[in-house]
């Protein structure tokens, strides 16, 4: 099928076409490069891509992210003006064999009769940084088809920042009783997310305690002038009984609106694309390659120039 008709079927939310487009983003044969670039350009030309709200949900394993995503999907689909949503669930469970058990879909449990929801699971296939190399292109495909694109990744510590390269705002999810996020925040090794979420709020006192600890940590960071911005929302959710899910969605929407109003959104997306481009170059050419182009700063400037000249798509295609 030619790229333009595939693109128009993607925009029309044809389930099979979206799947085919995503297959193309994962296709590593060099013969797939040109059709992918054509497809993404056609999608970009339609203007559909930029309107979508790209959301990242990340956090350590076992905090209930997939179940929370399931609740978020329902929240996004409910209400007077439901929005459509595509999900990329990135599963780190790949092992040395190259195989992976992709279990997120079981927990998200999308309703097959609802054409406004689409879920694709991806294995990280040994990638560092918690997201598969096809994710940036996949985000563009889903963004052309749906009002909301949600990327779920596993992140412990620094690695979850990668999801920020491909999304507009990120919620970092922790569970009561685990000090992970707190430690990372205190140590300053975790970039501040847009929203902090304490899931499993049904655990009562333990959850309250976790919220209080996070609040205290943020306050001291702000006081020390380390915090990027004051007033990061800290929300308690329970994917089990639905507590706080609507509030979480509202907080993400509000953050996205604020970024758009202030003009930061475009800058953030550009920075993400550039950072991803740098990462892809390093993976492909190694440290020696970086030296040959004059070091990391020079590389970054070169990629910025390329992206600004309309080279976002080539840079993403190169990264696949």
């Amino acid at each position, binding site marked *: 099928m030619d790229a333009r008709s595939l693109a128009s079927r993607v925009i029309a939310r044809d389930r099979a076409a*979206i799947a085919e487009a995503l297959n193309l983003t*994962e296709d590593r044969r060099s013969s797939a490069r040109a059709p992918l670039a054509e497809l993404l350009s056609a999608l970009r030309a339609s203007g559909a891509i930029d309107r979508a709200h790209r959301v990242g949900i990340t956090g350590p394993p076992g905090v209930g992210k997939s179940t929370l995503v399931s609740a978020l999907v329902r929240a996004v689909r409910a209400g007077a003006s439901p929005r459509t949503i595509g999900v990329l669930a990135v599963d780190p469970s790949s*092992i040395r064999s*190259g*195989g*992976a058990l992709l279990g997120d879909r079981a927990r998200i*449990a*999308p309703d*097959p*009769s609802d054409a406004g929801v689409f879920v694709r699971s991806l294995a990280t296939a040994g990638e560092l940084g918690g997201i598969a190399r096809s994710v940036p292109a996949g985000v563009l495909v889903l963004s052309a088809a749906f009002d909301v694109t949600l990327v779920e990744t596993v992140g412990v510590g620094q690695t979850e920042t990668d999801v920020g390269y491909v999304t507009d705002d990120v919620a970092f999810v922790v569970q009561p009783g685990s000090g992970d996020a707190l430690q990372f925040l205190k140590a300053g090794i975790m970039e501040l997310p847009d929203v902090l979420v304490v899931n499993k709020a049904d655990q009562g006192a333990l959850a309250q305690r976790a919220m209080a600890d996070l609040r205290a940590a943020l306050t001291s960071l702000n006081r020390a002038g380390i915090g990027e911005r004051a007033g990061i929302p800290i929300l308690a959710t329970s994917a089990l009984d639905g507590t706080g899910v609507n509030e979480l969605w509202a907080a993400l929407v509000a953050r996205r609106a604020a970024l758009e109003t202030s003009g930061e959104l475009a800058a953030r997306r550009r920075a993400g694309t550039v950072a991803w481009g740098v990462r892809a170059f390093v993976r492909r050419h190694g440290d020696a390659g970086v030296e040959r182009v004059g070091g990391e700063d020079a590389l970054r400037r070169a990629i910025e120039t390329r992206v600004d000249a309309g080279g976002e798509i080539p840079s993403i295609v190169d990264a696949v």
Partner: protein
Amino acid sequence: MRYSIPMSRDRPWIMRTYSGHSTPEASNALYRRNLAKGQTGLSVAFDLPTQTGYDPDHPLASGEVGKVGVPVAHLGDMRALFDGIPIEKMNTSMTINATAPWLLALYVALAGERGIDTKQLSGTTQNDILKEYLSRGTFIFPPNHSLRLTSDVIAYAVEEIPDWNPINICSYHLQEAGATTVQELAYALTTAICVLDTVKTRLGERAAEAMPRVVGRLSFFVNAGVRFLEEMCKLRAFVDLWDRLTRERYGVTDEKLRRFRYGVQVNSLGLTAAQPENNVVRIVLEMLAVVLSKKARARAVQLPAWNEALGLPRAWDQQWSLRTQQIVAFETDVLDYEDIFDGSPVIEAKVNGLMAEAWREVESVLATGGPLAAVESGYIKERLVASNAERLGRIERGEQIVVGVNKFTETEPSPLTSGGIDAILTVDPKVERAAIDRLKAWKAGRDGKSVEKALADLVRAAKDGANVMPASIAAARAGVTTGEWGAALREVFGEYRAPTGVGGVGSAGASAGDAREDIAVIRSDVRALGGELGRAAKILVGKPGLDGHSNGAEQIALKARDVGFEVVYEGIRVTPAQIVASAIEEGVHLVGLSILSGSHLELVPAILDGLRAAGAGDLPVVVGGIIPDADAVRLKAAGVARVYTPKDFELNAIMRDLVAVIRDRHAATAQRDGRA
């Protein structure tokens, strides 16, 4: 020489056959015939919609009505099921769990109509929900709510039906899911602890008075495999551990109330589809495990049929199993002696070893959050999946001999399975339509107002924390249906998806059939396939319908991961529509379906049609399960690429086959596209 029966001869156990199929009337006729043949109790098999709280007209019930048991949707069905059977004299065992309060309510309502006092009823509701999350899969609600319903049945029965066994703690299904002897002991005991602790809390101040009676009514449903001496030791270990636990943890002083009471269905997991006549011998040996030792003798026995691995057994197959029991009880001298193992140092050492190991595992579960947490976190499930993988691995490597399967496979054609006669029971597909019509007629004939009120009362009881039994019995009388009862409580408690158990099982070595060099070869072929496809080969393992027997699907998913496939596995109870949507959205290269409930002729075509309608008609679909040969032919004609049955026990061979299927289909597609 004259043969004489000693005075001390023990009473024989209750003899049952797990049965029920098609319709209440057909099952009733079967029960009456079985009783006439000398069966001394009834064991009711319900179909999957009844077990999971759906009426026959629910989309998920499609293809499942009357298949693995009898459909009971309302009091009218209960009347027909026990028509002409004096339930006040009968010992009726019901394999029912999530909907146990409801089926017991229907039974009590039936007794009421016949003017029978509940005190005259005796029998068993299985009512062990925890093992449903671990192996059998017919749960509905989240564990905490399910346990509350479990304890409602217990609290009600202890007062109102004193001769009823309100719960059968099932170690049976743990062994079927792959549990070792030690695991079977340990997790049955942690389940019992979980249930007793819940009941104790719910009884509140009445606990001190009522708990000894509750403990006294707790019974077990165990398994026995073909290593029958170890199994016999396991049962002796059960007796001693139970005595200790009930004395120490629950302070039961009356020795009689601490007796380990159990029924048994011997092992089906070890029964083979190859040379199935050999299964008769396995079944007899397994039975010895539960009758030889007087101290640890079963109080009720059910035997599987020789052809279970081929499909649903017929009345004649079940008769053979009953006759087996009767021969052991009445022709042999097993009942003539006091315990014949007392004083044997070999047996004592084995029993002590099992007890020590099992108790260590009990303590470790109790120390790390308790039995419920061990179920919810998937810990126990992962242990079972790993044990089963090891078992299958030993068989595949030939370390564990299974006659006719991995050794001594040469065979003459069997007159039992050849000759063109189907050696299994086939359920007429018309029974589903008939059940739906019957449901409609039932609904038309009842008083809508009383139904509404009964359901409102049920919901209130569920929300208020009152015992749901009285409201359920009133609902049964008002004509409420199984699906309505289930829907009302789903509304209050929500539905649950259990951990699949496959995510946490370690890589490579743990999965079945790990012949190293073989694995390496398959892995590199799967990698090469990924290169040809342009991305990693990805498969969907689907378990459509209501069947919760997930062993096969789990082992395939694990093995596929270990040889390098990306595997999407959504767990049990997914609809054909979900499978189609998942296959499309996930962009898989192959769909594998596992079905053991006999509903493959309905479910598989529905999925093939769905894929075609979604434009993915060329996606290869393979099917595994208990599929009779004739059905395999029909499935292949409908477009299924491969059919795997219990004969295909070599997982590595299946993996190589999946690679070939994907490669063939890919080549065909490429050629077609090339020509176009």
